């Protein structure tokens, strides 16, 4: 399943990054960071259609030999980046989409919490649990 999930704020700083296994965290951080360029590229490519018509799910950002990176942008320019293991061939696009949808829903719930200030790091346990479920599933 996903080996790394990251939520990036509009200003391109991470709100939430989690990856397994933990020792490769740095590598995934770097991967996510580089993927941001790709995200921006795709977003700008959609151009004028602006938000409404822009599809939230960006799809495969770029593949490497070990893993694939998928992206998703919300209407508020918050980006979700997911790194999945390439060996996981069973993962279909639909599944990735549904995972992003879940992420988005959880993120919305976090936003609804008045004690959460947008721009803070996400500490919500519910969000954590959801991400954990997504990450450990296939393990």
């Amino acid at each position, binding site marked *: *399943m996903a080996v790394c999930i990251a939520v990036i704020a509009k200003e391109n700083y991470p709100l939430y990054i989690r990856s397994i296994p933990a020792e490769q965290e740095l590598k995934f951080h770097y991967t996510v960071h580089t993927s941001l360029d790709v995200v921006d590229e795709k977003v700008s490519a959609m151009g004028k259609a602006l938000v409404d018509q822009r599809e939230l799910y960006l799809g495969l950002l770029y593949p490497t030999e070990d893993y694939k990176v998928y992206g998703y942008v919300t209407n508020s320019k918050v980006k979700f980046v997911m790194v999945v293991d390439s060996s996981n061939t069973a993962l279909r696009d639909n599944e990735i989409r549904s*995972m992003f949808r879940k992420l988005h829903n959880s993120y919305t719930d976090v936003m*609804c919490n*008045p004690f959460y200030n947008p721009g803070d790091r996400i500490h919500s*346990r519910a969000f954590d649990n959801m991400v954990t479920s*997504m990450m450990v599933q296939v393990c």
Partner: protein
Amino acid sequence: MEGLTLSDAEQKYYSDLFSYCDIESTKKVASNGRVVELFRAAQLPNEVVLQIMELCGATRLGYFGRSQFYIALKLVAVAQSGLPLRVESINTVKDLPLPRFGASKNEQESRHTTSYSSDTENQGSYSGVIPPPPGRVQVKKGSVSHDAVQPRTSTDQQESTSPVVSPQQSPPTSPHTWRKHNRHPSGGNNERSLAGPGPFWSPFSEAQTGSSAGDAVWSGHSPPPPQENWVSFADTPPTSTLLAMHPASVQDQTTVRTVASATTANEIRRQSSSYDDPWKITDEQRQYYVNQFKTIQPDLNGFIPGSAAKEFFTKSKLPILELSHIWELSDFDKDGALTLDEFCAAFHLVVARKNGYDLPEKLPESLMPKLIDLEDSADVGDQSGEVGYSGSPAEAPPSKSPSMPSLNQTWPELNQSSEDTAIVHPVPIRMTPSKIHMQEMELKRTGSDHTNPTSPLLVKPSDLSEENKINSSVKFVSGNTVADGYSSSDSFTSDPEQIGNAVTRQRSHSGTSPDNTAPPPPPPRPHPSHSRSSSLDMNRTFPVTTGQQQAGVVAHPPAVPPRPQPSQVPGPHVHRPVDAEGLITHTSTSPQQIPEQPNFADFSQFEVFAASNVNEEPDDEAEKHPEVLQVEKSSDPSGSLRVAKTDGRIEEKTAASAPANVGKSTTPLAPPPKPIRRRLKSEDELRPEVDEHSQKTGVLAAVLSSQPSIPRSVGKDKKAIQASIRRNKETNTVLARLNSELQQQLKDVLEERISLEVQLEQLRPFSHL
């Protein structure tokens, strides 16, 4: 007994307890008396205690050896946590709080570590130990005194402030730890920092140090902590009362409660509190919460916006992270606002947290906001979140009244439940019958015989809305699976007329759907004629109005959209779905319609034989049944087909007695016979569901028997032939009915299967990943 693994803390605690019970210093056996007393102090029901003792093997052995004692203690902890008592649970339950005993044991005093280490929520050995809120002075004394005071002094103040005997078995294990402190008059941390609002205790510090819980001060006042601090907000008035209590508590600090007194006090407390549920909100607490709610939002049914709630709860001086977590737990519907229930839950959690209890990972059941039944609907959406409540989804678009046949409705409801995890499993309701019934009712406004629908009608709107939601949601989910034949989901209509349309649409969708039930009867259908009472009259009136009626009847069919008829012709049971609809509605109204059956029967017969002048009278009950059913169906949204026939029938009915009508209509109409038959079948299908089958048959039979009296104006030969034809047809219809019923049942089962499959899929979010 299986091997028992204890954590270090548990080990210490248990050994302390054992030594306490080991009055004879045998180091082997715990005195039974002490043990029993100890267990009683655990505030468990007697039968539970007995069960524990049995499980640990003491009853078998006759005494409490060390291992039995330990096992028993573990079981006490299990029981206090609310888990079922099982032998295997002693080892499988992780992070079990230490067992709490109400009896005041002063032995613990020595243990009270004065150091209140503010651990972070460490659920480690002291599972549930609550780290004292950082910076909070330990008021252990205060708590003690409160405890002591509360039960003993029962000062009004105390009562008022600590009204809730919050369940003794407060979730975190802390209670026993802080109880120790409480009891300890001289312990290091006597200083009770009444700092700020209300006393907050960090009772557990000593527990955290690992002081063997053995000496847990079994002050046994479970309620105290929450009560003392439950109004911990700085600006809340109750703090004053709490503070007032402090002086009292100070006095008590010096007194050491005897075990007996403590025990009794505890027991009194216990009885008053609902110790079965540590998170339960007592009435006083609730009242307080409600008052607080009112200060923010005067309307008890309204919401507190997130920002206001944030300010309010920030006053409690809890860390933002914890407040955030509390919010997550209590905002059940995730709407960013708090309803009264949610607010009470949040407040309660804050109070508990301030008292040192750990926050649960998920909302305790007692704090869940009340769910609203779908039927009550209204604001269900907000509250229902809990699984098992068929709440929110129902609200969806009430405007849509699914006119789908029952088949559709059963599984959509199931799907809905699966989709909306919060919803309690909705009991599949046969919507169609009710809806159809409703339609019938509307159609047969004049018909007073359909009285029964009143209740179903009332239910229908909610059901309809429910179904609508369900259907819509289901549609999303299962898309095509449902679509087959039952695509009527898109044909939801809230009115009979609409339903009729829907039905027609359905028919178009599902090729197999017989037209019988689909087309809604034209609004102006004069139903009174279908009444049972009228049916007989019809017979009488039939001969009189035969000509007219026949003419009229003849006229009707042409007026009716021909669609149904052709479809009717094809196969009797094809229209099962449609029939089902009709049947369903029919069934719902069957009781009332029974009397009409004879009419139907008459009509159908008449139609079938077209020419029959009178003899229609259905000699066969079967025929009558179907006919009646058909007639009823015609009243139902069955639509055009019905219309044709029903029109004829209706007219006849209006004439007054069904039989008469039947006779009349049947004769002139040649094609109608087939539809009639089909209707019969649909009715047949309905019938099985209703079980009024037999009744109808009986009625029909009765009617039939009465019919022979109809004058046979037609030639005898013709009659004979017709009679024979009729008989054959009757047998045919009977068989057809059976067939349709069976098919109907098959469809229902298939629908359920589909819905279950859909649910299963939904429940496996990423299983395929």
